[in-house]
């Protein structure tokens, strides 16, 4: 799906936990997530703490979308 979105000319960032799969599939902008069943959350934290990590991850995603990349790039931080 990520490739088809890219193909129509829309920059796309893939937030996912298993980065090697994303690389194999062919995503160009990748942000590693927390865990498979809750990529943008962590049920062991409070709702407020979760929102903080979700905000951080999405901040990275926004940054990735605003960054020129030359080939596949994983945005670790």
């Amino acid at each position, binding site marked *: 799906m990520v490739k088809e979105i890219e193909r129509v000319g829309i920059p796309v960032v893939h937030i996912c936990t298993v980065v090697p799969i994303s690389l194999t599939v062919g995503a160009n902008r990748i942000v590693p997530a927390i865990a498979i069943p809750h990529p*943008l959350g962590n049920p062991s934290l409070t709702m407020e703490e979760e929102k903080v990590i979700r905000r951080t991850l999405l901040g990275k995603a926004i940054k990735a979308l605003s960054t020129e990349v030359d080939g596949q790039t994983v945005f670790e931080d």
Partner: protein
Amino acid sequence: MGKIKVVQYINQFYAGIGGEEKADYKPEVREEIIGPGMAFKAAFKDEAEIIATIICGDSYFNENLDSAKEKILQMVKKYNPDIFIAGPAFNAGRYGVACGTIAEAVQTEMKIPVLTGMYCENPGADMFRKSVYIVETKNSAAGMRAAVKKMAPLAMKLAKGEEIGSPSEEGYLSRGIRKNYFAADRGSKRAVDMLIKKLKGEEFITEFPMPDFDRVEPNPAVKDISKAKVALVTSGGIVPKGNPDRIESSSASKYGKYDILNYTDLTSETHETAHGGYDPTYANQDADRVLPVDIMREFEKEGKIGELHRYFYSTTGNGTSVANSKAYAAEFSKELKNDGVDAVILTST
């Protein structure tokens, strides 16, 4: 020579420990034959013996790739087997990645032959087909018998160091290795024969399949994200409560397009996941954990992004064929483009 010693790797599901709710099961070794091992035992007859089975939850392995790999490697080393068999994983994505990862590690570190099996569209297949022997299986466990029938004899050949035939003879996924051989006919004749078959509309087998490099170049970055219209897309199966379009829990035959204009937060009252390939507990409690509408709305308010697109698109990514996912995304990407969306955040579980 005594019996060939085999160590097998399987996931929590095939070990009978549990489904998605047990996918975080930590690596464990049992000195017994479990699950698919029974079929292998029957196929090996007296030639080989499974001396230990290693079990690990699919999510645990994939979320802890390095440490899980190291731990399982130590377990395998303890038994010093003649061959290591992982899976078969069929079309289970995380399981396939786990099988490929651990098989490759065992092969590299212990210098023993390894074998795994999976469906050709399993993400683990493209990741590891060049480094390890992967027997091509059907896309579900209904293909177990057929998989064992191909895997068991190949495992014996590998363990004995016998010559391995071509991918089509042995049933493994092509590894991109070329081997010289003497053909009965010269090249020009073979080429003309193929051409004639093609002209007649008959089937022919190419001697050199063209590699399929389906890569899309990255688009330029968004110039000013604070003015951009951003859309959310997910393969994590988030849908309005009740799953109005009845998107299947696996091998989805469709995708959904849902209006979030009036939502600032997804809750257990309003949204849930239709995905059957991961433990749905956390997404059902709070779907923002997969599709982060709450924070995107805050970003919108704070001016970090221009606006959040009114619709999100969703399907379940497990077991869904590459061809289908491609078709769904090709269709909705056009819509996104026509709706003036400047950027997409795609989340996967």
